[in-house]
C-alpha cells in the first residue's frame, strides 16, 4: 500500500470500487435463491454461512454462538469462521463497509435524505461533536449481549444480525416464504436512524461488526493521519463531516469503530491536503488528541 510521504498515490477510484463491491454483494444475495431454485447448488447459504463449492464460510459471530451455547468446537467450524476473520485481520472491518447489505441500504437511504432534504441533512451533519466514543462502551455492549445469550441459552444473535437477516429475507421472499419476523429489526433501525440521523446500530450496537473488530492487530489496514499535511479550512473537518459513522478520523479511538470505508481518505484527497491515508502498520505520524477542526490559523499541527 501507501508508504508515508508518497503523495502521488490517489484514492480517487476507491469509492467507485466500494460501490461496485456493495452492488455485487447485494446482487449475489438475489442470485443465490434463483440459482438454487433452478437446481444449481454450488453457491448456497446466506450471510450467516455461505458455501462456495466445498469452501464453507461462516460469520465468526455465529461460530462463537455455536461454540459457546454447545460447549463444542471442531476444526471445520474454525476454518469456516477463519475466512472472514482473516479478511478482517488484513483489511479491517471491510465486510461492513464493502459487503454488508444493511450498511449499503443505510448509506443509500442517507444519500436519498441528502437529495430530498438537503438543508436538514447538512445541519444534521454539522452538529457533530468532536472526538470518538471510548472503545470500552463498544466492548461492554458486545460482552453484555454474549452474557445475555448465555443466560437465555438461546441463539439471540440470529435476531441481531442485520446482514444475515436481510440475506435470509431476500432468500425467503424470493422462494415464496414471506419475510422473516426478524426483518422488523432492520426496519426499526432504518426508521429510528432516519429520524435521529445517527448510525447507532453500526456504530455501537451491531454484534457482527463487534465480532469482526476483535480481529485487529497493529498491522491491520487502518486510516492514518499525517498532521503535517493537514491544512483544510472550514468550521468542521470534511473528513469528520463525511464519515457515515459520525467518527472523527483525526482523533484517537478511531478503532474499533472505523470500518475502513475510506470516505474520509477520499474527501481528504479532494481538499488537496492528503493528510489521511489507508495504511498497513502503525504510523509514526499518528497523532494523539488532534483537534477535530483544523483551520490553517488555529491548527497547531500545520505549522
Amino acid at each position, binding site marked *: 500500500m501507501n508508504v508515508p510521504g508518497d503523495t502521488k498515490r490517489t484514492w480517487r477510484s476507491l469509492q467507485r470500487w466500494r460501490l461496485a463491491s456493495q452492488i455485487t454483494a447485494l446482487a449475489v444475495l438475489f442470485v*443465490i*435463491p434463483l440459482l*438454487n431454485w433452478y*437446481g444449481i*447448488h454450488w453457491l*448456497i*447459504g*446466506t450471510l*450467516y*454461512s455461505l*458455501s462456495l463449492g466445498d469452501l*464453507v464460510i*461462516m*460469520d465468526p459471530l*455465529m461460530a462463537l*454462538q*455455536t461454540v459457546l*451455547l*454447545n460447549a*463444542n468446537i*471442531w476444526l*471445520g*467450524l474454525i476454518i*469456516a469462521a477463519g475466512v472472514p476473520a482473516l479478511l478482517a485481520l488484513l483489511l479491517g472491518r471491510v465486510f461492513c463497509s464493502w459487503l454488508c447489505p444493511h450498511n449499503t441500504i443505510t448509506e443509500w437511504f442517507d444519500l436519498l435524505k441528502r437529495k430530498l432534504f438537503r438543508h436538514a441533512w447538512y445541519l444534521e451533519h454539522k452538529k457533530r461533536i468532536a472526538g470518538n466514543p471510548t472503545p470500552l462502551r463498544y466492548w461492554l455492549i458486545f460482552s453484555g449481549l454474549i452474557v445475555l445469550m448465555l*443466560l*437465555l*441459552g*438461546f*441463539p439471540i444473535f*440470529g435476531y441481531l444480525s442485520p446482514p*444475515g437477516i436481510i440475506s*435470509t429475507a431476500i*432468500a*425467503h421472499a424470493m*422462494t415464496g*416464504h*414471506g419475510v*422473516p*419476523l*426478524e426483518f422488523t429489526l432492520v426496519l426499526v433501525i432504518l426508521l429510528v436512524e432516519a429520524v435521529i440521523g445517527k448510525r447507532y446500530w453500526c456504530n455501537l450496537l451491531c454484534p457482527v461488526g463487534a465480532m469482526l473488530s476483535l480481529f485487529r492487530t497493529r498491522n491491520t489496514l487502518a486510516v492514518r493521519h499525517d498532521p503535517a499535511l493537514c491544512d483544510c479550512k472550514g468550521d468542521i473537518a470534511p473528513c469528520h463531516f463525511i464519515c457515515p459513522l459520525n467518527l472523527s478520523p483525526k482523533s484517537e479511538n478511531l478503532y474499533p469503530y472505523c470500518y475502513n470505508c475510506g470516505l474520509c481518505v477520499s474527501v481528504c484527497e479532494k481538499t488537496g491536503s492528503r493528510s489521511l491515508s489507508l495504511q498497513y502498520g502503525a504510523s509514526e505520524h499518528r497523532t494523539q488528541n488532534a483537534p477535530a477542526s483544523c483551520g490553517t490559523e488555529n491548527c497547531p499541527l500545520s505549522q
Partner: protein
Amino acid sequence: MSVLLHWLYRLATGAPYLRPPGAVPESEFLRRCIKCNKCIQICPYHSIVPADSSYGIKSGFPVIHPHEIPCYVCMKCPPVCPTGALDTALKDKHDVAMGLAQIDHDLCLAYNGVICRACFERCPLYREAIVLEDEMFPVVQGDKCIGCGVCENVCPAERTAIRVKSAHTGGAR
C-alpha cells in the same frame, strides 16, 4: 430468563412439524441452527421450508410439512449444515429418525375393505418400514420407520389415515 424463553416458545402455535433428516434433539437443534438456509436451498424437492411466523420465536428454523411435501430422504441436506444442527456424518437413509408413522385403522381404506397399497408402494424403505400383512393390511415397523412422511403425503383416504408422529415436537401430527 428461562421462564421468559419458555413463554416465548409457548407463543409458537403452528402445527407440529418434522425437522430435516439428521436433526439433533430439539433443544440442541435450537441452540445449533443458525438459520443459514442451506438445507432449505439444497433440498431438490423443496420439502424443507422455513417455519412461518405462526411459530413465533421458532420461525425461520427449517421444518418439513409432510402433508404438503414430504422428505424423500435424498440425504443432500445433512452434509451442508455448518453447525452440526443436522448430523453431517449421516449418509444412510436407514439411520434417519425424523418420526414414526402411525396408521388409524378406522380411517385406513385397506382396513375398511378397500384395496389400497399407496403407503406400502411409495415408502422409501420399500418392504422394510411398511409391510403388508396377509398381502392386504399395511403395518408400520416401528424399529424401521424413519418418519419421512411420504406415506402421509400419498394416503388417498378422505381424512389422512397414516400420519407421522414427529420425533422433535412429539404429539401426533
